[in-house]
């Protein structure tokens, strides 16, 4: 009995001591654990990989089964991939692997024995990470001529652009305290004090895109001052898009009327409104838009390069491209595709979006996010 109660007493006093000690020095900083080794100015991203491109598939590929790995937000209508199978006889199995960052990380991890033949969903922010790791085999799609010129970013065609969208600041028109914001500068003004919510660039893809937008707009030397201004004006940072949009933003009953989201969010608000509305409650601040492009690529190590190439071709076809807007809420890369009504009426892309070269993004990513953390979270 004695030893048992003694051990309880030791445990309890230990626990109390720890708690008291800890509350005296509570630490909730987001620290940085590894030294940042930002890549050198010389980037190997768009250098010639020295691999021969895959030839346009010609033969009969019926009966082959290939795997398509995507992020969690990939969605097309039921009949679309089936149409591909009907046309070519190739069966496509789709696997979802998390968000864009996870998609690329798991592909890099399994590069010696990939889980799939084709990857869809690597975007311009992660592009060079994938290219420098040697994830893809080059293939020049026949329909590449129909694609908007500025989207075909890799001169060696290791990835093919499939869709694009803009990450922009959205605002809820009726909830604004005053006039609508006209530019990024307005967000640091008193009118918008405590009105803006955005996401941590390290845990959120649109959050990172917004950071890139500010870097593109204010330059390497000015963006940190801009963010200090935002912090002074009461900006809120969340971990992910849902808790910003549905937690703090008006859409979820929150108190903030300005949020980082997509140019396609207003059409989505319209389509999924409950009760139905005549026009979306939100609008886009076009001065803030950063272009996001999504690519597909044939994974190195695939056993079915020709079938994979056929799938890439299909992804630029009318059947697939016209299915994209109302399923994934992005714009088709193929410029010949007609957009659905909700997009025509309420959607738009910025005429002059902010962009940064993917090689520059990859080289500076860790450095930028560290500096952002220092300015905003500390």
């Amino acid at each position, binding site marked *: 009995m004695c030893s048992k109660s003694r051990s309880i007493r030791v445990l309890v006093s230990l626990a109390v001591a720890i708690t008291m000690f800890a509350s005296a020095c509570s630490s909730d900083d987001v620290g940085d654990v590894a030294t940042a080794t930002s890549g050198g100015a010389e980037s190997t991203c768009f250098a010639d990989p020295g691999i021969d491109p895959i030839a346009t598939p010609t033969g009969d590929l019926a009966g082959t089964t290939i795997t398509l790995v995507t992020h969690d937000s990939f969605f097309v209508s039921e009949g679309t991939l089936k149409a591909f199978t009907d046309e070519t006889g190739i069966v496509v199995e789709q696997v979802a692997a*998390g968000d864009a960052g996870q998609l690329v990380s798991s592909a890099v991890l*399994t590069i010696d024995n990939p889980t799939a033949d084709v990857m869809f969903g690597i975007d311009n922010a992660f592009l060079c990470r994938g290219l420098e790791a040697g994830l893809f085999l080059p293939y020049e799609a026949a329909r590449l001529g129909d694609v908007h010129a500025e989207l075909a970013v890799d001169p060696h065609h290791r990835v093919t652009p499939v869709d694009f969208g803009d990450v922009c600041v959205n605002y809820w028109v009726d909830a604004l305290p005053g006039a609508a914001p006209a530019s990024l500068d307005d967000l640091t003004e008193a009118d918008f004090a405590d009105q803006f919510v955005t996401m941590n660039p390290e845990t959120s893809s649109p959050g990172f895109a917004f950071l890139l937008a500010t870097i593109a707009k204010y330059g390497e030397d000015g963006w940190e001052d801009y963010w200090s201004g935002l912090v002074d004006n009461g900006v809120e940072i969340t971990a992910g898009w849902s808790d910003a949009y549905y937690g703090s933003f008006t859409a979820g009953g929150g108190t903030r009327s300005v949020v980082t989201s997509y140019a396609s969010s207003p059409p989505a608000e319209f389509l*999924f409104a409950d009760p139905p509305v005549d026009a979306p409650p939100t609008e886009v601040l076009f001065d803030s838009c950063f272009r996001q492009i999504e690519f597909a690529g044939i994974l190195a190590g695939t056993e079915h390069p020709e079938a994979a190439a056929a799938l890439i071709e299909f992804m630029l076809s009318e059947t697939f491209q016209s299915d994209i807007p109302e*399923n994934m809420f992005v714009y088709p890369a193929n410029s010949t595709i007609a957009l659905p009504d909700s997009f025509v009426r309420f959607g738009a892309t910025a005429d002059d979006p902010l962009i940064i070269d993917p090689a520059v993004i990859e080289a500076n990513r860790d450095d930028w996010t560290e500096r952002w953390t220092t300015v905003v979270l500390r």
Partner: protein
Amino acid sequence: MNERRAWAAIGLLPVLFLSAFFLYPVGAVLVRGLTADSTSLADIVSRPALRRVVWFTFWQASVSTALTLLAALPLTAVLANFRFRGRRLVRALVTIPFVLPTVVVAAAFVAVLDRFGLDRGAVNLRHTVWVILAAHVFFNIAVVVRTVGGFWSQLDDRQEQAARSLGASPLRAFWEVTVPRLKAALLASTAIVFLFTFTSFGLILLLGGSRMASIETEIFRYAVSRTDFATAAVLSVVQLVAVLALVVVSTRLQRRTTGTERLAVDRSTPFTTNRQRAAAVLVATATLAFLALPVASLVERSFRHGDGYGLGNYRALTERVPLLPVSALRALGNSLAFGVTAAAIAFAVGGAAALFVALGPKRLGKALDLGLLLPLGTSAVTLGFGMLIALDEPPLDLRQSWIIIPIAQALIGVPFVVRAIAPVLQSIDPKVREAAATLGAAPWAVRREIDLPLAAKAAAIGTGFAFAIAIGEFGATSFVGRRPGHLTVPLSIARLLGQPGEALRGQAMALSVVLMLVTTIVVFLVDRNDQAGVL
């Protein structure tokens, strides 16, 4: 000789399971990370930022665990000692928070903060550690109530009665007689709650904003956002070492406390005084009210449709929403199928392990028990990525197969089954068995008549819990990659919450309510009481 071979056979199943699906994948990914070139490992470990992160993780886990125990024990006492109408229902209701996906819990807590005005002005709890602690308690009350409560309800109460008849007050009888007998179960549930909160990911990420960093969120950040497997591997090792240390300490403490106990099938009695009944009602109401608050906001939101309230969101679940590859009903079917499979695996592996731990060779049993606890304390990212690189070649080419999902879920469920069954088996007085043998029963009959009834109830409790965990799970399998047809309910909810549109949000809430209902029903049914006719 025969006996040794029998034990080896029994122990082989859990050892193989653990080795193939945990040790091998985790080992593979850690080796990959630690042997990568880049920064020196000693550099990484010595960063002050790392120490801060480790400290915060320990602190929030300890306080969460302490608070959970405080919040759960009154209700545990009531459920174990008293028999009353609605008892099974209360026990099932307490399990609900445990199955809710973290996305939903986070949303519910934000809603509660909003309703009570606690996220603005003078008292602003948004993104503070207090919300995280509250959410941890919310989640883990079920663990204590079920593991401690299960064991407690089977403790024969004659010792307490003896103490009472000798003049001890109820409180003294409780403190000096009951608590020491409960120590094994208390320590076990404390360890589990600590492990869960130590590796908590979704809640810290979503409720803490970006200002809170735990070891788990940092592993995610480095492995997934930065593709920096070296740092992630180092952090995983730190996490594993911490977990191992904790488990060793708790096992040492437990060793001194297990003795044989006289077990009843159910010790509960009806209320004898009005004061008892009043106290029990108060405790049950208070605890359930705390749990109900976030749940109520979910339920209310799920019925909000159009301009008022209605069943529209629920009706929409039967159709296929544009965003989801399968209808919500199909996702529910998937979740149930995976859950049942995971529970079955957990039962088989955990049952064998419990036998081995409780009645087999002592040292090996301890090692196995420790080993089986490790998955609870391992980062989901590490395990998921490990499976991705390890299970890629025959005979274990399972990373694309559907079976990997229930296997990963079972890894978390097995320790619960073991912890439910082993203490019961360990506490059976060998003299009871010897008595049965003296009276002529063959060894297998002894096991069947003595061990089985007592162990069966514990097995049901443990397996039911494993099922509940599998249903609400979201962790390691989201890193392995899944086919759209295998979509489960938690993933569907997360996707519905990932797009703008009130209608989708309403459906996410409706789906969460359906998930809660299904779990309550299943857990309620599994929780069989041998006393007929009592709820």
